[in-house]
């Protein structure tokens, strides 16, 4: 007896929805085993995590704080992934967006009318993210440079640049020696929602999701992008300009990540300092895949992922477990996801050896 994976003649729609859901639960089980091995009660831990993430309005707002950058970067990378462009540089695009927004807030704001400071910071942050995704896009589209390498490498450039700035030239002289810039002027603060730390970025993310849905389903450009993503040969034959469209799509992809970074600095830290991103740009990859690149699914998946992070922090406080539990679970989701996608395109067939088959030829031969 052996197993054979057979390609399905049609992609299973049920599997498309079930795979992310089942993978989530599988990762909970795997994580549970891990917790049990390290001596914690998995059920109590998960309950604590859920309370930490959703237990009160205040807790939920903290979950939203982490979900907002995940939504924006998740939407950003899903555009790129739809084009089969493996943009793993959302982290760098986010960071550079934050750096440029901070530059506007710190050094340009004096010369601007007060109402213009925040829009300028956000827009230039988006432009910076777009640039950071645009460089690998141009290299890929016109000379075929592998984008996984370039996008990944540019992450380090952006992150190290930001560190250089807040440790060096931008360091607040009145900051008691702590690395970090001075606080931004109030005109550069992105409004928060109520008395929580959740901010207007949530609205931006929801608008972006709607906009992306509209672009991909209702516009000529989105139609062309879908064709390019599905079949480049057909796109070329239909007269669609592939290179230009890939670059444009990636500018949009990077702009959303840049906006995530600009929102982080202007709404949360309100200064340039360490911890601008806690790996949002990488988690965005998981978000995009779990959402099956569907823009309306991205916000929900982002909230789930954020809940794991916030819940992980709570577990540390309440149960004395390392906060990495949440991150470990995040990572674990991807494995069953990747394994599960196999089942959307393939089905498993079990082949048993045909003992009787060896008898067939002799009877056939006689009949011939």
């Amino acid at each position: 007896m052996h197993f054979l994976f057979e390609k399905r003649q049609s992609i299973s729609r049920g599997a498309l929805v079930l795979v992310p859901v089942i993978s989530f639960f599988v990762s909970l089980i795997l994580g549970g085993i891990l917790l049990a091995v390290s001596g914690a009660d998995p059920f109590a831990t998960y309950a604590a995590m859920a309370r930490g993430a959703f237990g009160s309005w205040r807790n939920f707002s903290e979950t939203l704080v982490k979900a907002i950058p995940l939504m924006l970067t998740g939407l950003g990378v899903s555009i790129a992934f739809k084009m089969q462009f493996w943009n793993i540089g959302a982290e760098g695009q986010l960071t550079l967006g934050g750096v440029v927004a901070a530059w506007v807030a710190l050094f340009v704001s004096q010369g601007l009318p007060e109402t213009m400071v925040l829009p300028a910071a956000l827009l230039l942050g988006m432009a910076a993210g777009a640039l950071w995704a645009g460089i690998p896009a141009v290299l890929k589209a016109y000379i075929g440079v592998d984008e996984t390498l370039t996008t990944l490498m540019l992450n380090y450039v952006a992150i190290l640049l930001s560190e250089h700035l807040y440790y060096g030239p931008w360091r607040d002289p009145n900051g008691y020696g702590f690395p970090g810039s001075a606080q931004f002027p109030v005109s550069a603060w992105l409004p928060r929602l109520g008395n929580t730390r959740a901010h207007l970025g949530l609205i931006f993310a929801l608008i972006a999701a709607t906009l992306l849905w509209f672009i991909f389903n209702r516009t000529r450009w989105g139609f062309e992008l879908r064709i390019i993503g599905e079949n480049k040969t057909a796109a070329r034959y239909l007269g669609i300009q592939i290179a230009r469209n890939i670059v444009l799509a990636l500018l949009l992809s990077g702009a959303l990540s840049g906006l995530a970074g600009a929102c982080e600095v202007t709404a949360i830290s309100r200064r340039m300092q360490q911890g601008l991103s806690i790996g949002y740009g990488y988690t965005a990859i998981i978000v995009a895949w779990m959402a099956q690149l569907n823009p309306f699914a991205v916000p929900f998946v982002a909230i789930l992922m954020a809940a794991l992070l916030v819940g992980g922090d709570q577990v540390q406080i309440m149960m004395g477990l390392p906060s990495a539990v949440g991150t470990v679970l995040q990572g674990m989701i991807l494995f069953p996801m990747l394994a599960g996608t196999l089942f959307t395109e393939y089905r498993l067939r079990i082949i048993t050896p045909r003992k009787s088959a060896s008898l067939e030829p002799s009877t056939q031969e006689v009949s011939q």
Partner: protein
Amino acid sequence: MTAEETLKTPILEMHGITKHFPGVLANDQVDLQLYPGEILALLGENGAGKSTLMNILVGLYRPDKGEIFVRGQRVEIDSPRDAAALGIGMIHQNFMLVPTMTVAENIILGVQDLPFVPNMEEVCRRVRELSERYNLQVDPDAYIWQLSVGEQQRVEILKLVYRGAEILILDEPTAVLTPQESQELARILKVMLTEGKSAIFITHKMEEVMEFSDWVRVLRQGKLVAIEKTAETSPQELAQMMVGREVLFHLEKQACVPGAEVLELRNVASNDDKGLPALKGVSLTICGGEVLGIAGVAGNGQRELAEVVTGLRKVTQGEVLIRGKAMTNKSPLEVIREGVSYIPADRIGVGVVGNMAVADNLVMKGYRQAPLGEGGVLHPRQILAFARQLIEAFRIATPTPQTRIKFLSGGNIQKAILAREIDACHGLIVAAYPSRGLDVGATEAVRKLLLKQRDDGKAVMLISEDLEELFSVADRILVLFEGQVMGVVPAAEADTESLGLMMAGIRQAS
């Protein structure tokens, strides 16, 4: 059977092999016998089922029906590993080599009973020994990327003999070789045959059949149509059997009323994907209201010709003019804007986007203009109405317009492409093998549609390997051989024999 054959027992037999793919019957009750020390040529057009049959033999596909016997034993081949154990090995058209590894490393890749740490010196010694025995001249320590295509092929051969293959399957082995390398290959194979090995040679070139093989089996549309002894047949006869002469039906054709010149090619040259010359100074004209048939055995420049006209391939020399306007090396979009439509040979890979809806696929030319789209925004309702109209007019059988097009049958996919291209066309249609692989009904529909375009005053370039199709649809027939025009004859005066000669490379005075 002659006395000589009955003396030998076949090393390999395939009986009644049948294989279905969605919408296509790739192999229909195919039989095959291979005798030790002989080369069997498997001749047929693209899509005739040659590769499918061989992929079944090496365990990549499982047949729906049929049996395989090796050395008289009934066998089940479930994987290439099973095939290798039976001494069957295949050299694919695209070599399966790892460029960053050495010849010796490539040769032992995938060998089953390899020790954990292979003794590379021993391997190299054996490779040298085998290489000398068959005069293959390959350095076992060279890296694959350093080797020429011909040398890489020799590595593939070495790989098989190293593993003790007795039956070698070669899939269009000379397609990538220079004439000198081809002769070298013929010589190497001869040596192997004297040792009792045997080979199956997949090809669609008659000259190769004549040069290499002892026996030839001709496949057409998945069926075995002829078994010939190579010495007793001729290239012309093979060409006829390969493209088929059966009269499917009779098309009512009105007299041709040529209008103004639509397409002109002046001394056009172009390269194929490997950068080798594929078109060598082709000149032709097509007028409105006229069908120019392009005959020839596949791989003689037809694809490049179609792509040069549609802007998909760069011209290295010469001019392309559409209605007198210079269109040489213009982009596909500019060519589309001139009203040129193209029905590509590769329907699934090029013609449609399989994962998108039938309706989406139908508007992939028209979406740029109102009423389907305005100012960059698409109108879903208009798109649906437009799609319904085309589905109705071209009788495309689809469950709904939203069905993903890859779930339709081959004939319906082709009708959808025709619907889209004909609707968008104003001037010239380039159709490459438009009825290939379709059943009789769909074939008739496709041909009638093309004739109707011609009657409406459009210029049609019809590339086909099916002479019957060319006789019934084309007004003039141009024969391509190795990228050159062998002659142009009016369809009414053309006959299979003279076309067959031109297709085999014998120029006609015309």
